[in-house]
């Protein structure tokens, strides 16, 4: 198991946002986490990445505990992420955003930077090469000098993925990577996620509301509701799980969404 979460729990005041969730991610798989709004999916990601410390539970990555680590230390261990509400560095160019992702992998020290010595030059060169490669991978190379804030929405999401990849992760956590995309963009992103695993050998965990995406690319699906894991299994198992249908149907708007997109997934 690359990632092994046992009985992770997060409480905010009186609210149990994540309730003793156990969750396992084998290497080189694509796992989806789904659930209605407010189910605790993002909070779950935040616990893994060290933004929140779990109230209790175990989180092991590559056999080592992540509990107590700061987010930057978690990143250095090999977990990268994107954010549900895009968090790019708006005043930096597309390319610079990716270069920032290389922070923990680059070796340039303060002195190296001032002296412009060979370490600095080699580092910058390697960084540029990798950034170029990643921008090509997500199809943003020709936008490299544009400020991130000026990119259209769909491209911003892809840039977040490129930036996360620049940290050289073993595991990448994607929080709603297709949110706000049109069908073509969604399709392209789906393809991109597959290539992450197949070409780059990276394990992917994604939070996703679009059931067409979930059903077609996941090796395994975990369902959260009110912070609790209510189902887990292969996509088609989960889709037909009465508890899952109940969780979605129990809530007006979300139910329609699930029903519709689940069928869409079937059609595809």
């Amino acid at each position, binding site marked *: 198991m690359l990632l092994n979460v046992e009985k992770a729990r997060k409480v905010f005041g009186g609210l149990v946002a994540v309730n003793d969730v156990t969750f396992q991610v084998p290497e080189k798989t694509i796992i989806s986490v789904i659930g209605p709004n407010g189910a605790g999916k993002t909070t779950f990601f935040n616990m893994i990445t060290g*933004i929140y410390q779990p109230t209790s539970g175990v989180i092991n990555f590559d056999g080592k505990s992540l509990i107590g680590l700061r987010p*930057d230390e978690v990143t250095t261990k090999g977990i990268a992420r994107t954010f549900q509400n895009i968090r790019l560095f708006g005043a930096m*160019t597309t390319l610079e955003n990716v*270069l920032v992702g290389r922070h923990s992998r680059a070796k340039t020290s303060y002195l*190296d930077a*001032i002296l412009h010595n060979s370490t600095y030059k080699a580092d910058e060169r390697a960084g540029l090469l990798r950034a170029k490669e990643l921008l090509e991978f997500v199809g943003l190379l020709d936008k490299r000098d544009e400020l991130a804030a000026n990119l259209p929405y769909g491209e911003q999401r892809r840039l977040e993925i490129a930036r996360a990849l620049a940290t050289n992760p073993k595991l990448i956590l994607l929080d709603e990577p297709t949110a706000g995309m049109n069908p073509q963009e969604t399709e392209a992103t789906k393809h991109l996620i597959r290539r992450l695993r197949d070409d780059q050998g990276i394990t992917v965990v994604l939070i996703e509301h679009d059931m067409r995406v979930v059903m077609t690319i996941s090796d395994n699906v975990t369902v959260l509701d009110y912070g609790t894991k209510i189902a887990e299994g292969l996509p088609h198992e989960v889709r037909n799980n009465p508890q899952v249908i109940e969780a979605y149907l129990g809530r007006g708007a979300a139910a329609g969404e699930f029903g519709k997109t689940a069928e869409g997934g079937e059609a595809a």
Partner: protein
Amino acid sequence: MKHTASLPDRSMLLIASTIISGIIAYVMILQKNNIESYFVTPVVMFFCFNLYFASAWNVSRVAKIVAFVGVLFIGIPMIGFTNSLYLQVAVTICIFAAMSLGLNVVVGFAGLLDLGYAAFFAVGAYLWAIFGGTQANEFIAGNLFPLNGNLVFIFIPIALFVAAGVGALLGLPVLKVKGDYLAIITLGLGEVIRVLANNLNKPINITNGSQGVRIAPNPETSPLAFITVPLSEATGIPFFQMQLTMYYVLVLLVVLAVVIFTSRLDNSRIGRAWVAMREDEVAAQAMGIPLVRTKLIAFATGASFAGAMGVLYAAVIGFINPNDFNFERSTQILAMVVLGGLGSIPGVIFGAAIVVSLNQLVLVEISRVIGLLNLPPRFDPTQYQQLIYGVILISMMIVRPKGLIPAKRNPAKLENLEHGELAKGVK
């Protein structure tokens, strides 16, 4: 297209105008005794235009260098031999430009609002004033002081490290707190340093309290005397005027060094981490940037520049007192940074030049006119510098938050990377 076509002539124009202004300045030195002092002002303005066009126009590199070197290293010192006021202003501009560049690292790059920046300036200034003058004799036996002025070049790096150390020490607890608290805490720290400067005249007299510390001017032992004295003898230019010129060249070189330092940092992993952190702390941390450490580096870098400039300030001005380092000083430097453009290296220098010229030339001139017109002295604008800083800060934030010369991000230079390298997939 029209733009590129006009490139060569503009370059030539700039070079020509630089040379012409240089010749005028030289003639002025020769005709020193026949020239009215008000004639100097238009020449200085001519210089300033040259500098402005050199930075604003899209001209060849050579023309830029000619204009900058010509004006800064030849033109202004020559003016200084005729009229030392402008040279004094230029020295002050350089000192403040270097400090603003330091504060720019903290506020502009890293987005940390530091309102106690003058405290680090004070650390450097007191360091030199105490040991470079006779003050240290008060608490170190043996009548060893003043030290030889040339030791200032050793004190500059010492102050660099001391101020960086003080910055890191103070920053360590402070930088963990939320951004807007930082402003108030640094303000408090600035106050603490001022209180210490004011009160550390007992039990042992270290700072001489509110009276401040003076370094008696002494041609024999002043910094760079070994060059200044023979030069002044050879050229017949009075010693103190020659010394001022030497100081000017010195601070100018320091500004140059600071520009190189900060722009190199800006274009490195460290500078990118600062900007990323400024833009979004959560995302920056998720990219593997350790926040406290990165903030601390920014804070200490800014502090160290201020410390080094403090040493030079004390050496050049020769007298310091606690009020040189109060809140007003910190806001003055902040106003320079904000006016020029947060995070913009040319902008910040420009901001320092404008604020200093405003204070030392424009306001002084207006105040002279007010005196001539017999208006009540309460309307003398030199007393309302805070008002000016206030107006600068508010209006810039509302109208042009990116400053007069907004920071530019550098375009990527990917062209020289070969495709073969890419295929290897450097990681």
